[in-house]
């Protein structure tokens, strides 16, 4: 149960929107949804999932968290028009108002200003993040350990990255890196930044998937969603036995 009951008579519930589950489903991304779902279930928070793909309409007023995974270049091209025309603008509007969002890899790239291909063509993005992506020659692949100040001074984020696009963040205050690389490449392999955060919207290159092994980050998303919906978002702590062991086994490799 939530430590401070929000209301005694009403059941606490959250609804997650999974965008393009049939196209953006690479690298264990669905583990993020499993993690959010279980962590709610263990706390007796009702958790429902709705999906929206090509041609589907979304009413963002019923949505508490959004998840977008990664996909191949080919699959991203398939959904791009639909996203740009139908779901993207409403999604940007809702995130401006604090809707928590987690976008991994391909999803993250689509939410930047543009994606520039090897040939120099620019594919415009949604512009939610003050960021842009350029196709690189080599893929950036491997385990990642990074510091995530958002969660506390000594909290680490672990995951696995696999991307050829290099993402750069603008200098504006509105979009900052989610984390600072300790081991691995991150956004572009140069500036030590990993991911981006703007309000409660997060983009990241971390697969793994990111949430099960970073339970504090999963709980941050849930807390933000509860705060937005109920005004309060304190979560009951969980034992996190295997979460911490799996997390530490990666951290230990790089220390």
């Amino acid at each position, binding site marked *: 149960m939530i430590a401070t009951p929000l209301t005694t008579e009403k059941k606490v519930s959250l609804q997650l929107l999974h965008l393009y589950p*049939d*196209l953006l489903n*690479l*690298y*264990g*991304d*669905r*583990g993020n949804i*499993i*993690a959010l779902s*279980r962590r709610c279930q263990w706390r007796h928070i009702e958790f429902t999932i709705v999906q929206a793909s090509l041609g589907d309409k979304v009413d963002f007023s019923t949505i508490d968290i959004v998840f977008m995974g990664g996909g*191949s*270049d*080919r*699959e991203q091209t*398939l959904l791009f028009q639909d996203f740009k025309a139908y779901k993207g603008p409403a999604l940007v509007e809702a995130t401006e108002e604090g809707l928590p969002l987690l976008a991994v890899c391909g999803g993250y790239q689509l939410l930047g200003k543009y994606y520039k291909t090897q040939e120099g063509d620019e594919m415009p993005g949604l512009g939610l993040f003050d960021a842009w992506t350029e196709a690189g020659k080599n*893929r950036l*692949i*491997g*385990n990642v350990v990074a510091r995530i100040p958002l969660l506390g001074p000594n909290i680490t984020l672990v995951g*696995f990255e*696999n991307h*050829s696009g290099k993402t750069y963040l603008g200098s504006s205050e509105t979009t900052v890196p989610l984390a600072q690389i300790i081991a691995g490449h991150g956004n572009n392999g140069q500036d030590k930044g990993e991911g981006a955060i703007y309000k409660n919207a997060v983009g990241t290159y971390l*697969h*793994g*998937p990111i949430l*099960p*092994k970073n339970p504090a980050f999963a709980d941050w998303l849930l807390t933000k969603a509860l705060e937005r919906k109920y005004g309060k978002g304190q979560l009951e702590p969980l*034992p996190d*036995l*295997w*979460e911490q*062991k*799996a997390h530490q*086994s990666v951290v230990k490799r790089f220390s």
Partner: protein
Amino acid sequence: MFPSPRLLTALWLGKVAITVNRHIGHGGTSLPGMVGRKIAPQMLSSLASQLKKGAIVVTGTNGKTTTSKMLAAIMEKAGLTLTHNRAGANLISGITTAFIQSASVGGQIGSDLGIIEVDEATVPSLTEEVKPRAVVVTNFFRDQLDRFGELDKTVELVKKSLQKLPPQSLIILNADDPLVASLGVKHRGPILYYGIESRSYGNKDMSQSAETRFCRLCGKPLQYEWYYFGQLGHYHCPHCGFQRPKPQVRITDIELKGEEGSSFSLETPQGLLSITLSTPGFYNIYNALAAIAAASHMKTTQSSMQMGLEGYRTNFGRMERLDIGAERKAFLALIKNPTGCDEVIRTLRQNEGPKRLLIMIQDNAADGRDISWLWDADFESLEQIAPQLQSIATSGLRGEDMALRLSYAGLPAQKIQFIASIDEAIASTIEATGPGETLYILPTYTALLAAKTTLTRLGYSPKYWEE
């Protein structure tokens, strides 16, 4: 043909490397080939060109080892001698090692047929060096994406190498996998398709691990009438007209018999055939079907096909039965990608008795560095058999990640045990397995090699390079 001095030197050094490796207790399936190729880069092509009936190449994500071993069993019954990378080392150096081993000290290959299992990424260089008479493609699933990048790229890579084959080379394709069948579109050489017509197994819903719901040719959604597993099934594209090709080698009837295996009937260009397979798992029916398709291309007799497959026993960690004494059963089953893993779980769930589980996950280069796939596999279905699970252990370099995965799959976190050492994990779980219980050991590739060494030492399994 007289081999060049350079080839002979390469060959002899390779043979010495094989002997030394075995002597010190390693499988040594790659190093000798690597050494040989350094000295004589052309050695594989010159050895392979001596095969009297040429070579058949087997590639695809899952089922390469089993399909090529089943084909080898059939061909041996047909009286052919073989050069075959049996130990499953399927990169160019491992394949060269198999040829070094098969050649005489005078540099002659005496065998009739080559059966070569090859990693998808190695297909281009292999088909260039060994001009195969036929290439079998089993299926495409996500596997080691850290190495291949994206599945689309793997499919494209294989497609390009198939286009460069000699014009008379046959390609043998799984009609039920739209990713594989798409390789046949616009292919100029001869094609043989195989597939399952029977609808007694499978279902109308798509599984989590399906790789695509979209047509590879036009990008619009595919329509399915029937699924077997993953994206395998009966499909067509209403938009561009791409559809499941009618297979020439096709299964018309199937009966699954749990751990006892299965029996099925099929139609081939040579006539009707019934097979009893003692190897469990629905996916092994596809492997047998692929092997039959290749054998039918060789004009092999039906009795050789039957005898070869009926005598076939799985080994090398493909639902391999281990001898751990009377009244206790143990199976070793490689898992390395979501679809393969789902099929192993589906097979073990058919056993209704008490069972124990040991899952060993590593992330060495040969396993794939990325273990995200654990979250795409359907470990949730284990929750339904939780009461039968006497113990659940994990091990290996990423055993803690596996324990985490199982706890999110709904298995009680306290019931899960992590044992860091593979040696200790195997010894203690075998020890704990009581009469009437079945132990399932599910390792990734390098964990399988480690498990084999441990099992040999404990007296439960032969040396893997001798199988």
